[in-house]
């Protein structure tokens, strides 16, 4: 990893932390405030790719583990990993890596805008929604012993919000790619 890649990952980790500290932002068309931190995880994959994006999220998780209250609502410390919802948190790392890997495969600078946005959207959907929620559901079901189906039904209420975040991540990813062309997609 070059120094520049290390710095990019660290800066993105700082962005994810900062997104947890800002008040929830309202979406334009539906009156639901979104917490921006899991959006930051998808953005890390979409914008930095698998390696650097994964490292950025790993840094955030490390900060949580060493006792800094960097998660939204001032959560942090090792106790966070003892929570029944810890699967979603650990899943962030895999979400960023899978989103990054898929973004690198699906999206190319030569494609048209709409294809790029669709590619980023599918990548964020796969990593940030499918993978992260699957891990969250498995751990929740394991901890509580309620069975996968119940955990899955409980999880469903969070899916629409995260699909919207994947959409935002896709639009933002394409905008950053156009607005900051010096950033190589792959590390």
């Amino acid at each position, binding site marked *: 990893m070059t120094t*520049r890649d290390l*710095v990019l990952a*660290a800066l993105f980790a700082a962005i994810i932390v900062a997104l947890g*500290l800002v008040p929830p932002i309202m979406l334009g068309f539906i009156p639901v405030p979104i917490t921006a931190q899991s959006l930051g995880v998808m953005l890390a994959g979409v914008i930095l790719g698998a390696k650097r994006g994964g490292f950025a999220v790993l*840094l955030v998780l490390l900060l949580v583990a*060493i006792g800094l209250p960097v998660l939204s609502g001032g959560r942090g410390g*090792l106790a966070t990993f*003892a*929570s*029944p919802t810890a699967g979603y948190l650990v899943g962030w790392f895999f979400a960023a890596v899978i989103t990054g890997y898929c973004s690198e495969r699906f999206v190319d600078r030569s494609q048209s805008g709409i294809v790029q946005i669709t590619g980023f959207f599918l990548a964020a959907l796969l990593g940030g929604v499918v993978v992260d929620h699957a891990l969250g559901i498995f751990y929740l079901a394991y901890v509580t012993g309620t069975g996968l189906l119940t955990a899955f039904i409980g999880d469903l209420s969070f899916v629409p919000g995260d699909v919207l975040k994947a959409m935002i991540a896709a639009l933002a990813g394409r905008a950053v790619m156009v607005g900051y062309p010096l950033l190589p997609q792959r590390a």
Partner: protein
Amino acid sequence: MKTLYVEGDTFLHRLSPRAKLLGLAALSLVLFLIHSPAVLSVAALLGGIVYSSLRLGWRQSWLRLRPILLTIAIVAIFTLILNGREDALIVVTRLTALALFAATVTATTSTGDFIDEITRLAMPLERLGLVRAADIGLAIGLVIRFVPEILSRYQAIRDAHRARGLKVRPLTVAVPLIILTLKNADEIAAAIDARGIRAQK
């Protein structure tokens, strides 16, 4: 950023971070193997005693533990409805015990000690050529250094929205925030290299 570490000189403060982390990992394994509510209740009680030995006071303790205790409570209520009393009791006692011991480790280990320990733990990975162990400490330092800057940048972007009568939207905030922040990377990387902080060994 205020850490969750609490200054002190108890036995747990003096214990090495590695011993605490290994102890916590072992404890979590044991807690998940035990299925007796009585034993788990004793474990939760012990966790409470150890945590209270830090003398944080009720208010501080509540503020620190509130988010995780609320999550445990919600999950326990669902378990109670779906699986009955026995399972709900196991979930509550097991997770509360784990949360209390984990919070104790967090409160008795300083950020610096943790970073040193992580760097040492990453040494085998360095030998495999996966990461450079010293990079982890450097990266953590960078994150802590740049969070306040990104927050003030966020405020500037929000003010710019207001000045133009625009609503603050996730997309219109995230894009300039990310581009402005990542554009700094070259300068920061050059500064790090110029100082030889990541010198080749």
